[in-house]
């Protein structure tokens, strides 16, 4: 008995001390993570999402809002929006025509179709209350199952669950712990493809502007001639996009985005991406495209929002394209200027400036 008692005591004191050390270590790491020094040494942050471009945009928007005091307009979409629109040019063009300088951020993320974007849209509106949400869309957004390989892991992320009201400890930690956010970009350091994915992440982190634009350097070299069904790449596109149909579930996603107007007071503008016209050959020709536009326009206008068809900005030269869908660093400024002008027209029609309270004038 006399031998056991001190051991019992040491067991509990070990447990207590371990918990204390755990808390102390976590607190020290958290403090270090919140110092400007770490921000300088390792500015990269993550919330444990598989799509590191989403995370670059998420934190860049946080920084943007911190710097600018808010955001008036958020551009949302896939990689087409990411590389196709420079918010600074859109804002400048808008300013030239209206005399008002809106704060615009580009939240276009690679691989995100309208399904995950309908979730992202709500998150952004709830966090930042922009006056206008521009959703950049295109025909492939509405193909059932398109982009599911991005959608599933993105939507299954604990942090996203936490953000959408489903409490879980990992998600809470990822959202609140600065130390964890600074560690997470490197969390897969042991993964064999880390040596390939990390340089890409670092490069993207560096080239993405403060307003969320990422310029594409590639120039398309195969758009002069129509798609060739004998070319394996084109044959795959024919297979993927031929027999084009709008999936009802994807229209519901569009409706979810449009509902933000009524529910949260954020205006929604649906903008069709001016992709290269040769793309419409894959889906069955311009007739199919017009039918698509009609459907989207009907859904959009009946929700009290506006739809800007691709033809409104079809002045992109071939040299301004990276491929059939994406614009490059030469095409993006042209589309951005066009969108800025169209935005000014829309503002005039709706008798608003799309500016939140404390905007820069």
């Amino acid at each position, binding site marked *: 008995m006399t031998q056991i008692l001190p051991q019992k005591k040491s067991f509990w004191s070990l447990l207590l001390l371990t918990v204390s*050390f755990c808390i102390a270590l976590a607190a020290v790491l958290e403090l270090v993570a919140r110092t400007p020094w770490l921000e300088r040494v390792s500015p990269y942050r993550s919330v444990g999402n598989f799509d590191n471009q989403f995370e670059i945009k998420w934190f860049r928007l946080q920084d943007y809002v911190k710097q600018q005091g808010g955001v008036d307009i958020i551009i949302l979409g896939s990689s087409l929006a990411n590389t196709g629109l420079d918010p600074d040019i859109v804002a400048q063009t808008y300013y030239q025509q209206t005399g008002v300088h809106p704060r615009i951020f580009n939240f276009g993320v690679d691989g995100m179709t309208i399904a995950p974007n309908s979730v992202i849209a709500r998150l952004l509106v709830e966090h930042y209350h922009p006056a206008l949400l521009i959703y950049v869309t295109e025909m492939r957004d509405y193909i059932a199952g398109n982009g599911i390989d991005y959608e599933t892991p993105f939507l299954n992320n604990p942090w996203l669950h936490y953000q959408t009201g489903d409490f879980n400890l990992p998600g809470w930690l990822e959202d609140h712990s600065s130390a964890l956010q600074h560690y997470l970009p490197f*969390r897969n350091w042991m993964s064999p493809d880390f040596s390939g994915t990390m340089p890409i992440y670092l490069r993207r982190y560096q080239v993405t502007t403060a307003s969320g634009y990422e310029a594409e350097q590639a120039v398309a070299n195969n758009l002069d001639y129509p798609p060739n069904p004998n070319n394996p790449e084109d044959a795959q596109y024919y297979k993927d996009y031929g027999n084009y149909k709008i999936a009802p579930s994807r229209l519901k996603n569009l409706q979810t985005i449009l509902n933000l107007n009524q529910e949260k007071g954020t205006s929604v503008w649906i903008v069709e991406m001016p992709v290269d016209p040769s793309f419409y050959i894959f889906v069955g020709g311009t007739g199919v495209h017009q039918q698509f536009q009609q459907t989207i326009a009907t859904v959009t206008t009946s929700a009290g929002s506006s739809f800007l068809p691709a033809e409104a900005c079809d002045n992109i030269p071939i040299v301004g394209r990276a491929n059939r869908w994406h614009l490059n660093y030469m095409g993006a400024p042209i589309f951005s200027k066009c969108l800025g002008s169209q935005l000014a027209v829309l503002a005039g029609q709706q008798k608003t400036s799309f500016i939140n309270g404390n905007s820069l004038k």
Partner: protein
Amino acid sequence: MSITTLVFAAFCAVSILIYWRLPQHYRPIWLFAVSIVFVITWSWELAGILLVVATVNFYLGGWLGVAENRRRILLSIGIGFNILALLALKYSGFYIIALTNLLEKMGIHTGAGGLHLLVPIGLSFIAVQMISYLVDIHNRILTPEARWLDFALYVVYFPKILSGPIERARTILPMFKQPKPLDTQKVEQNCWLIVIGLFRKIVLADTLTTIIPAAIFLHPGAFAGQDLVLYLLAYAFVIYNDFAGYTSIVRGVSGFFGIELTSNFKLPYFSRSISEFWERWHVSLSNWLRDYIFFPTSRALLKRIPKRDNVTNLVVPPIVTMLVSGMWHGLSWNFLVWGGLHGLYLLMERLSTVWSPRRLLNELPKWRQVLSALGVFILVVLTWIPFRMELATAWQYLIRMLTPSAWIKPDAWLLWRYLIGKAKVNSWTEFSLPDIRVFIMLIPALLLDWKQSQHKDETFFTKWPVWGKALFLASLTLVLVLLSFADTGAPFIYVGF
């Protein structure tokens, strides 16, 4: 239910608390019940198969115990039953297609996916335990177990069911009846065994497993020579820490029930001879092979030619023993080659003792001990090549690893230009640098083994001051939390056997 999950921890905690509250008479019943529940979490069919195996061996053992005549026949039936059960269930892949085709030809339809047989986890481990039980009864060094429940518990006891250790009935059955008392010292020791096990498995083995590119063991031709060497080294530490980690966890868990399981690993990579390696690596299997294959073979040969330095007496026992070891791991050429190589190593060692008298390893000068350990380590690591991959691929791996032209010089110039921002790369592999992550992980792996060997105690942490232990535990907890955010995790390698 994986043993590294919180669900398993909760399952164990509840089982242990209730176990010690029960009178001794009911404890084996409780242990049997929780073991069956554990097995059912893997598959209920497995529970059925194990109970059939237990029942058949229980009655065979009983008959062997009382039989005066035909004891050899009974033993042969018993051994045959266990080997057949193993072959039929574990190696069903060999005959299932032919059987399906035959049934289809006979007009019996087997369904869309053909015939399926359950591959019972841990059956290789159970089969050898059953054989040793029957042999021990036959040799009259063990009396048959009288109570079916205790014997069935020996078969399904959950801490050891997945991958051993391979326990002898004569050591474990008495502990079911009279578990070792649990004092706070034992509690702490068991806790440390679990902590060390988790460290070995999650921090060391799982991390190294993820670092190793999966393609390297399929297409070694696509990798540089130095990568093949480095990742083979990493694999050597994966398999060791994976299995040693598993054993440490289950020993800790079992200790909480007052049932001490065999320590399967005794710092095997510090062995100074191949025979010492087999005294330190998968000890419970090595001991089984020694007692039930090596010694009987040696005795049988010595009976025929009673000379120790006779060539047959020298050659056959180690080769046969290690070939059986290879076959136990799997009926394929690569495991046979792996076993054969170890048999060959052991044979060389035996032959060397014929010409020069064997000196005790501890009496060798320190430098010779270090050199021997290094040599043994290299020889053992080389055997992991056929162990890990198909024979043709293993050969390709070995050849490429030893071909100087397959070794690529690091591109220091590109690295320098990248660091100063003058060059862009798509992947850091373009620098052709050795994977530094392997070295980073080898440091704690070696440090743990070195500390254990210095203290001659695997739970040496218990001697640390309280604050030291607490700091270590707190750091480990944080590391485990951080690792849990990575998209990694690997099953235990030996659960596959």
